[in-house]
C-alpha cells in the first residue's frame, strides 16, 4: 500500500468537497499524510499538485475575498473534475466502448482500459444494438506510437534515429504535430528543428526508441497544415500498359487511349523513384513514354541490370 497515493486521494477529496478555497496551512493541518518540517511539507505539496495536474485534475488557485489580500487557497471544482461529454445515451456508450475495445493487446491499451472504466461508471445502460458491429482492431503495437501520441498531446519535442532512402541513419529532432494511419502505415508529421521545415516520417522507419523531452508546451501546433501539393501542380507520366496488366499503376492513373494490345495511361508523378521501381517491376508489360527523362532513366537502369546480371 502506498502512503503517497493515499495522500493524493485524500488531498483530492478535501479539495473537491470544499465549497471555499482551502489555504495551504489548512491543508497541512487537516489532510492526512502531510507531516514533518514546514519546508518538507511545502515541497511535498508542490509535487502533489504537479502529480494531480499530470492526471488531468485542475487545481484552482484563488482567494476568499478579492478586496482584502487574504492568503491564497486551493480547490478542485466538480465542473472541471467530472466527465462531461454532453448528452449521451445507451447507443453512444456502446459505440464508445466498442471503439475502446479496438486497443485490446495494442499500443493504447492502458488508456482504453481506463476510458472503458469511466464509461462503465456513468450509470447509463449500454444499448446492445451496435454490438452486432464487428469489434474494430487497432493493429499497432509499436511502443513509439504511444510515446509520440503523448508527446503530441503534451506539445513536447522528440528525438529519434531515422533511416533515409539510402539506408543511412540520421538523428532527427521534431516538434510532432500529428499522426495519421494510412494504408497500413503510420505517418508522423512534424517540424524538423534542424531543417526548420515540416516533414513526414513513417513510423516503421524509426529505428530507435523515441525520446520525449520532459518539458511540455514548447511549441504550438499550426491550425492549418501547410497546403499540400495537388495533382494539378505535378508533372504527368505517360505510360503504355499491356491489356489486363499493371493494376496498381492503373488504379492511380487516368486512361488516355485504349488500343488492341496496349492502353495509354497518364498519372501524376508523386514520387519519381517509386514510379521508376514500379515500371521496372512490370517488366515488358509497361513502357515509359513521357517525360523523356523518365524514359531515359528506365533504359539506363535496364542496361545496368543487364551488365550486373550478365
Amino acid at each position: 500500500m502506498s502512503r503517497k497515493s493515499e495522500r493524493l486521494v485524500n488531498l483530492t477529496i478535501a479539495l473537491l468537497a470544499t465549497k471555499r478555497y482551502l489555504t495551504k496551512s489548512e491543508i497541512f493541518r487537516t489532510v492526512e499524510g502531510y507531516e514533518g518540517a514546514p519546508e518538507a511539507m511545502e515541497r511535498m505539496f508542490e509535487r502533489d499538485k504537479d502529480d494531480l495536474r499530470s492526471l488531468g485534475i485542475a487545481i484552482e488557485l484563488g482567494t476568499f475575498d478579492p478586496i482584502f489580500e487574504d492568503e491564497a487557497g486551493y480547490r478542485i471544482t466538480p465542473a472541471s473534475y467530472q466527465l462531461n461529454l454532453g448528452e449521451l445515451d445507451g447507443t453512444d456508450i456502446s459505440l464508445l466502448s466498442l471503439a475502446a475495445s479496438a486497443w485490446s493487446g495494442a499500443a493504447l491499451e492502458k488508456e482504453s482500459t481506463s476510458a472503458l472504466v469511466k464509461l462503465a461508471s456513468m450509470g447509463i445502460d449500454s444499448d446492445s444494438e451496435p454490438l452486432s458491429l464487428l469489434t474494430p482492431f487497432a493493429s499497432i503495437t509499436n511502443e513509439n506510437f504511444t510515446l509520440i501520441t503523448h508527446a503530441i498531446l503534451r506539445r513536447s519535442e522528440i528525438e529519434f534515429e531515422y533511416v533515409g532512402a539510402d539506408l543511412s541513419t540520421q538523428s532527427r529532432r521534431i516538434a510532432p504535430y500529428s499522426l495519421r494511419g494510412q494504408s497500413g502505415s503510420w505517418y508522423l508529421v512534424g517540424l524538423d528543428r534542424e531543417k526548420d521545415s515540416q516533414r513526414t516520417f513513417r513510423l516503421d522507419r524509426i529505428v530507435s526508441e523515441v525520446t520525449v523531452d520532459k518539458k511540455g508546451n514548447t511549441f504550438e501546433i499550426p491550425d492549418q497544415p501547410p497546403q499540400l501539393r495537388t495533382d494539378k501542380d505535378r508533372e504527368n507520366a505517360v505510360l503504355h500498359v499491356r491489356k489486363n496488366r499493371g493494376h496498381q499503376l492503373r488504379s492511380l492513373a487516368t486512361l488516355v487511349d485504349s488500343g488492341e494490345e496496349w492502353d495509354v495511361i497518364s498519372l501524376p508523378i508523386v514520387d519519381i523513384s517509386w514510379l521508376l521501381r514500379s515500371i521496372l517491376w512490370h517488366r515488358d508489360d509497361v513502357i515509359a513514354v513521357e517525360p523523356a527523362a523518365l524514359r531515359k532513366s528506365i533504359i539506363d537502369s535496364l542496361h545496368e541490370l543487364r551488365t550486373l546480371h550478365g
Partner: protein
Amino acid sequence: MAKSTTTPLEQTARLLDLVPFLLSHQGISMADLAKHFKVDSDVMLDDLNTLWMCGLPGYTPLELIDLAFDSGFVTIRNAAPLAYVRTLSSSEIVALALGLDLLRENSEKLGEEQSDRIDALSKKLREQIGVHISIAASPTTAHRSVISASITQRLPVEMTYYSPSSDQETMRIVTAYDFFRENDVEYFQAHCHTAREMRTFRLDRIVAVSLTQSLDVIPDVQRKKNEKIRVGATVRILDRASAEAFGLTFTDLHRGGSVTLEAFSPEWLIRSIMAAAGSLVVEDSQEIALAIRQSIDSTMALYE
C-alpha cells in the same frame, strides 16, 4: 494483460476511478473488478485496502470511505465526494477517437444513423483535444470485417485477390480460419475452395470481398507449391525501398555485403530484383540470373 506492479501515480488514478465504478457496480466480485481494471487481484486488494483509509479530513469512521470486500464481493458507502466520474484524459480521448475511426471504416455494416452518431461522437471528442491524430479510411478494415465474419460464422467469401507475382487479379472462394501478423503485415489462413487446399492470403491484397452462400468454384488455374525459395545476393547500393520490398532488416545491410532474398514465387523475386534497379545483384542462382536477363531483354526490346 493484467498488471502486477504499478506506480503510486497509476494507483492514485485507479483509486479515483474505483469509487464511481463501485458506486455503479455494487456487489461486484473481486475477480471481475480486477478484470475491468486489467490488474492482478493482489494489486486490486492493495487498492481497496488503500482506499479504505481515505476520506474527508477528520478521518473518523464518519468521514472515511466505507468499503466491504472480505466476502469476495465489493460494496462501497460514504464516498460522496469522489462519486464523480473523472473527465477523460487527452490520451484516453485519442484512444477512443481512433477507435471510432476504425469503427467508421467498417462502413459495410454501418447504417446511416450509426454512422452519423459516430461522426458526432468523434467531433465531440476531437474538439476537446484539438490535435490531429487520425486514421484515414482504408479498404483494409472493411475487408477485414468481411473476413472476420467468415471466421466467426464459418461462411465462405467470394474474393477478388491480387497476385503480385503474376500481376493478375483472380477470383476465389475461401473460408477463413485465422488472422496472423508477420513483420507488420496482416495475413489470414483460409481454405481455398478454388484450389482445394489451405492457403495464406495478405489482407492488403484483397481487391474486393463479400460473403457468399455459394460454393460453386472456379478451378484454380495456377496451382503452385507454397515453398519458399532463397537466393543469395550482393548489396551494391544501400537502398531503403529494396530492403523494405524484401523485408530485410535495415541494420543487416552493408555495401558489398551478402543477403538472402526470400520469396514464395520466382516470378515475384525476379520482378522485385528488376525493381531494385541494380541495388541488389543475384549471385548464387544461375536459373534466376538467366530469367532476369530474359526479362531485361524482352523489356529492352520495347524501347528499341
